[in-house]
C-alpha cells in the first residue's frame, strides 16, 4: 500500500482534475441534509457531513432502473436501454457505506464463475472508483467497529482519505486507485512517518469515540433456535411498517419490477421495494406467506443476521446506524441483537 499526503487547499484542484475526466459523485448539502450527487463544481462538495441520509447504494443500485424497452406493433422489438458508459469516481464515501457495496457484490455479481451477474449493477460497480473518507467524529449510533471494521478502514475502497488536520493522509489501496491519481501525482507528496502516526492516532480516537457496540458472536446459531420466540411479536407490535429502515439501509437490496407503457412503447423498470410492506410477499393467489408485521420484522433481522451470513459469510449490516436514527418508533437493531443474545431458548 502506498501512502501519500495531500494538503487541504489542493483538494479542489484535485477534484476539478478528476471531474474533467470522470463523472464525479460526491456529498452535496441541500435542504439541511447531504446526499450523493453528480458534481460539476468542486466547490459544491460538503465534507462536514457524517453520513448521507440516503446511503450511496443508490449510485450503483439505482432506485429506478430501466431493464429494457419494448414497442408494440407488427413486429415487437425489445431493446436494451442506453447505459451510462462514463467512468465514475465516488468521492467522500464513508468506509461503512463502501462496505455496503462489498456486501451487495455477492447478491448482484454472484459468488463463483457461472453465477448470474446483474449487468446494471456490475457495469456501474466496475466502472466506479471509490475514494473513501475516514470518519473523525463518529455519530451516536455508529457501530462499525462491531463488524471488524473501523471508521478509517481502507478495506473496501480504492483510495482512502483521512483528515489529519492541515492535510489528508492518503492510502492507495488498489490498482484502480493508483491509476486514478497517476496523472495527479504533482499534487501529492510522500507521507512521512509523522503523518502516519497522526493518522493512526486519528483512527484510534475515532474508534474510542464509538459508544455503541453490537456483540454478534454466536448470533447466527442463536437465531436458529429463536424463530418462534416472542421477542419478534413484542418488537413488531410497535413497528408501523413504514419501511424507512430498508430504504435508507446500505445493504437492503429488494426490488420490484413493473411494466410501464404508453400507446406504442414501454419499458420494464426495476424499483426499490421493501420487505416491511405486506404487498411485498403477497402472492397472486391472495395468500401471503408473511401476513403479519411480526413475520416481516423477524425476516429483516434474520436476513441480515442469519440467512446472509450463512450464504455469504458476512453480516448484512455495516453498522452505519441509519435505521436506528430514523426509526419513528425506536426499533433499535443493537437492542434487538442484545435481546437475542440474552434470550432463553
Amino acid at each position, binding site marked *: 500500500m502506498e501512502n501519500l499526503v495531500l494538503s487541504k487547499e489542493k483538494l479542489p484542484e484535485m477534484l476539478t482534475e478528476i471531474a474533467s475526466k470522470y463523472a464525479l459523485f460526491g456529498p452535496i448539502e441541500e435542504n439541511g441534509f447531504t446526499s450523493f450527487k453528480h458534481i460539476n463544481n468542486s466547490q459544491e462538495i460538503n465534507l462536514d457531513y457524517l453520513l448521507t441520509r440516503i446511503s450511496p447504494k443508490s449510485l450503483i443500485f439505482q432506485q429506478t432502473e430501466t431493464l429494457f*424497452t419494448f414497442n408494440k406493433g407488427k413486429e415487437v422489438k425489445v431493446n436494451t436501454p442506453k447505459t451510462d458508459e462514463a467512468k465514475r469516481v465516488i468521492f467522500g464515501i464513508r468506509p461503512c457505506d463502501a462496505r455496503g457495496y462489498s456486501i451487495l457484490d455477492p447478491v448482484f455479481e454472484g459468488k463463483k464463475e457461472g453465477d448470474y451477474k446483474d449487468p446494471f449493477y456490475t457495469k456501474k460497480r466496475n466502472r466506479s472508483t471509490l475514494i473513501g473518507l475516514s470518519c473523525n467524529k463518529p455519530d451516536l449510533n455508529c457501530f462499525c467497529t462491531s463488524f471488524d471494521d473501523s471508521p478509517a478502514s481502507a478495506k473496501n475502497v480504492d483510495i482512502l482519505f483521512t483528515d489529519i488536520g492541515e492535510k489528508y493522509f492518503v492510502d492507495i489501496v488498489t490498482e484502480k486507485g493508483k491509476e486514478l491519481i497517476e496523472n495527479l501525482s504533482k499534487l501529492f507528496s510522500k507521507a512521512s512517518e509523522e503523518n502516519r502516526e497522526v493518522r493512526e492516532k486519528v483512527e484510534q480516537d475515532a474508534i474510542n469515540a464509538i459508544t455503541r457496540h453490537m456483540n454478534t458472536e454466536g448470533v447466527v446459531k442463536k437465531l436458529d433456535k429463536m424463530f418462534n420466540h416472542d421477542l419478534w411479536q413484542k418488537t413488531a407490535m410497535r413497528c408501523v411498517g413504514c419501511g424507512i429502515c430498508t430504504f435508507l439501509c446500505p445493504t437492503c437490496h429488494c426490488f420490484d419490477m413493473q411494466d*410501464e407503457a*404508453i400507446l406504442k*412503447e*414501454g*419499458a420494464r*423498470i426495476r424499483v426499490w421495494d421493501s420487505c416491511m410492506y405486506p404487498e411485498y410477499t403477497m402472492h397472486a393467489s391472495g395468500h401471503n406467506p408473511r401476513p403479519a408485521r411480526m413475520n416481516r420484522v423477524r425476516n429483516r433481522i434474520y436476513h441480515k443476521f442469519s440467512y446472509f451470513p450463512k450464504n455469504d459469510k458476512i453480516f448484512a449490516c455495516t453498522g452505519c446506524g441509519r435505521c436506528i436514527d430514523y426509526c419513528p418508533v425506536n426499533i433499535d437493531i443493537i437492542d434487538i441483537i442484545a435481546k437475542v443474545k440474552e434470550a432463553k431458548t
Partner: protein
Amino acid sequence: MEEFEPNIIGFLCNWCSYAGADLAGTSRIQYPPNVKIIKVMCSGRINPMYVVNALQQGADGVLIGGCHPGDCHYSRGNYLARRRIAVMKRLLEYIGIEPERVRMTWVSAAEGRKFAEVVEEVTEDIKKIGPMKKIRRENVW
C-alpha cells in the same frame, strides 16, 4: 412558429353536460376542437385524481361539466363534485399549477350555446399560459 393547440380533457356528465355538448354539435355551433370529451355518468363520479392523472398523461387542461345545482339526475352528485373539485383546485394552485388548467362548469342539456362559450373561454385561457410541462410524464426510459 405554429400556434400552440392545447389538449383539454372534458369530463362531462351523461345527463346534462354531455347532452349540452351534443346539442352544440347538432345546432352546428362552432367551438374549438381542443376539448376531448370523456363521458361519465355523473360529475360526482369524477375522482379528483382523474384531474391529476390527465395532467400527467398529456392534458394541458381539464374541464369538468355537471348539471346545474338541483338538477342532478342522481339528485346530489354535482353538489359532491363541487366540494371535491373546489378543494383539489385550491391544492393544485398551492403546489404551483396554474388555476386556469382545472375548470368546472354547469351546463344543462339545453345549453349548447353555453357549452361552446365555455370551451372557447377555457381554450383561450390555456393557450395564454402554454403547455403543461410541470407534472407531465416524460415517458423516456
